[in-house]
């Protein structure tokens, strides 16, 4: 046999023209084995979600309402409004079933998988919020589900692991690397590549190969759809600004989407500034997760986007007190909106986020997720940037964060943290009188 080295046929399209790209970002950088699945998903997304075939959209909306608890309220924050001397409204995604906006997406994808005839769900999870949302949706829709989670995260996030197991999902420990989110994503991709024919991979944010970023954003857009109507009804006009935290960016895009066309509305994506914005090239660690503010263009987990990487292109470890923001990449659409200056990327550090957590808990009676506390912290520190009327997304509740907030609070000097000596007092008291 003899062969000549040759090539013919098309050269392949260039990235920027293809559907599934947002300016320079997006695309489908996945192993060939996954491409058919990705394309099948693209088709299904177009048919069921965009073209509303077979009543998918109606069923999705109905289940979001009855199972998920939508619409979530838009609440005027009385004391925060006083404190910041402007009108502050909170979009209460913390009230969604499961305790975070994550269910909007998980329910959408599991339902879509059902419409596609898939028989098995896999998902990755870091802090466990996306995993629990997926496990709930899978239980609700009677789909077997396996969630990959780093061994370190499993030990740190016991309650969420319990919840997934209680909902009947398998939780597969991933021990590679640091045993955290990045490794769990890699491992879920591998499962998908192996079982692609009957399995759908429910990705947890607006990241990954097309159509995930657009599809997840579409499922999450119910947030801004509601919020835009609610603020007009309650305040009589559009807000001057909208604020959301950004990890992968799904609550962010969900909260922004319907406002993107409203040019007078400023959009702030609040990233985790962690303990510092610098990257330590030596150790390959960025003590932050501010990929929009400090990241550079590259390819991660299937998409071209902004990410935290060293000069060679290896992805560095991100860090944040909030595990849901602790991710080195960000959704490609959000990266594009930042490049085109439609969205302003900002960040707050761990201490500010913790203080905002305490502030909202004490003054509004809402214990926010540490992720959401970042959005509050930005508003608190920069009221003048908000205009007269602002909407802040409370992407989730903080029940999952209690232990870590207590721990982190103890290690710092925060302005407004309550003392937790009650346990010692109660222990001391067990014998004595009152």
């Amino acid at each position: 046999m003899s062969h000549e080295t040759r090539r013919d046929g098309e050269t392949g399209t260039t990235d920027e023209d293809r559907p599934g790209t947002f300016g320079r970002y997006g695309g489908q950088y996945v192993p060939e084995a996954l491409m058919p699945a990705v394309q099948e998903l693209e088709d299904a997304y177009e048919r069921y979600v965009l073209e509303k075939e077979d009543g998918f959209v109606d069923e999705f909306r109905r289940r979001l309402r009855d199972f998920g608890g939508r619409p979530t309220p838009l609440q005027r924050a009385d004391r925060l409004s006083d404190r910041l001397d402007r009108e502050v409204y909170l979009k209460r995604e913390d009230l969604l079933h499961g305790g975070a906006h994550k269910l909007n997406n998980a329910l959408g994808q599991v339902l879509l998988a059902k419409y596609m005839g898939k028989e098995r769900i896999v998902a990755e999870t870091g802090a466990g919020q996306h995993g629990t949302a997926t496990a709930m949706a899978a239980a609700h829709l009677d789909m077997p589900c396996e969630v990959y989670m780093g061994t370190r995260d499993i030990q740190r996030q016991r309650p969420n692991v319990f919840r997934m197991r209680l909902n009947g999902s398998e939780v597969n420990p991933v021990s590679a690397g640091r045993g955290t989110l990045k490794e769990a994503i890699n491992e879920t991709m591998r499962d998908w590549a192996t079982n692609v024919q009957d399995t759908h991979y429910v990705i947890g944010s607006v990241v990954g190969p097309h159509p995930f970023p657009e599809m997840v954003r579409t499922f999450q857009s119910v947030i801004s759809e509601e919020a835009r109507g609610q603020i007009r009804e309650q305040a009589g006009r559009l807000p001057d600004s909208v604020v959301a935290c950004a990890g992968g960016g799904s609550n962010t895009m969900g909260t922004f989407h319907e406002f993107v066309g409203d040019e007078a509305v400023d959009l702030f994506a609040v990233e985790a500034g962690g303990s510092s914005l610098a990257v330590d090239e030596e150790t390959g660690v960025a003590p932050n997760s501010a990929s929009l503010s400090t990241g550079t263009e590259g390819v991660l987990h299937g998409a071209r986007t902004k990410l935290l990487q060293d000069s060679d292109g290896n992805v560095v470890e991100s860090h944040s007190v909030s595990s849901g923001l602790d991710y080195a990449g960000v959704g490609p659409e959000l990266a594009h909106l930042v490049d085109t200056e439609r969205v302003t990327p900002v960040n707050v550090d761990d201490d500010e986020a913790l203080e905002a957590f305490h502030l909202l808990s004490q003054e509004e009676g809402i214990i926010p997720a540490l992720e959401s506390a970042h959005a509050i912290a930005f508003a608190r520190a920069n009221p003048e940037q908000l205009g007269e009327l602002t909407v802040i997304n409370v992407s989730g509740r903080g029940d999952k964060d209690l232990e870590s907030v207590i721990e982190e609070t103890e290690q710092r000097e925060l302005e407004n943290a309550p003392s937790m000596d009650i346990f010692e007092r109660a222990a001391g008291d067990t014998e004595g009188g009152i």
Partner: protein
Amino acid sequence: MSLAEAFDEPAFVPYLCVGDPSVERTREYVQALVRGGADVLELGLPFSEPIAEGPTIQGSVVRALEAGTTPEQYFEFVDSLDVDVPVVCMTYYNLLYQYGDSDGPGSFVERAAEVGISGFVIPDLPAEEAGPLRTACDDHGLDLVFIVAPTTEGERLERMAGLSSGYLYVQARLGVTGAKADVSDQTEASLAKVSQYDIPKAVGFGVSSGDQARHIVEAGADGVIVGSALVDIVADHGDPEGDDVPERLESKARELSEGVAAGAENMAKPEGQ
């Protein structure tokens, strides 16, 4: 030797990740593989997110990164490598994209050409995203090898066969890299699917024994790619000084290359050569 020449006879294509446990040891290992009969070398450049690799190769990549292996060290290593078989660079797209000052894969390909690399396998770069790299490879006369998966069919298969140069990497089964006792029945079907294309077909994913290699060649493959079974040897033997990893690699390579050769002999040879 060019890639095309390397596949004149059915070829044994071993994979190792450069830098596991160190660049210097990789040199010994590679020489051992060549002594054992390697026809083409797939040399991995470690990337932090090896999403297409199974646990074995992933472990190797992690060790190589921990040892501090960089693209530049990789290039210098290949440059200084004194072997007479073509080297294919296997890595992920972000490393190509970041290399050099300008965006895009151009500088990386240029440097690769300089050090004598013959081609690339980029597992996270499907045909749809390959335009810029294909162009750069053409500009520098390098091959770009695409992976055909069991799920690749129809138009996409056409397009990829067209785009691929050097060889087609035929993925023997779904999933990620990793040694398996059985190579799936899928192999024959996969080979049949691509038989019409006039390009060498090398089968990989899960091959670990001489026997399997022989079967694969008998089924019509032009090459057999073996990674995890070799990396297992690298991983199992820790002592950086006095261990017998090179000896074991050489003998495993010999088993595999002999399997390939046996398969080639046993084959009906409808086209005389």
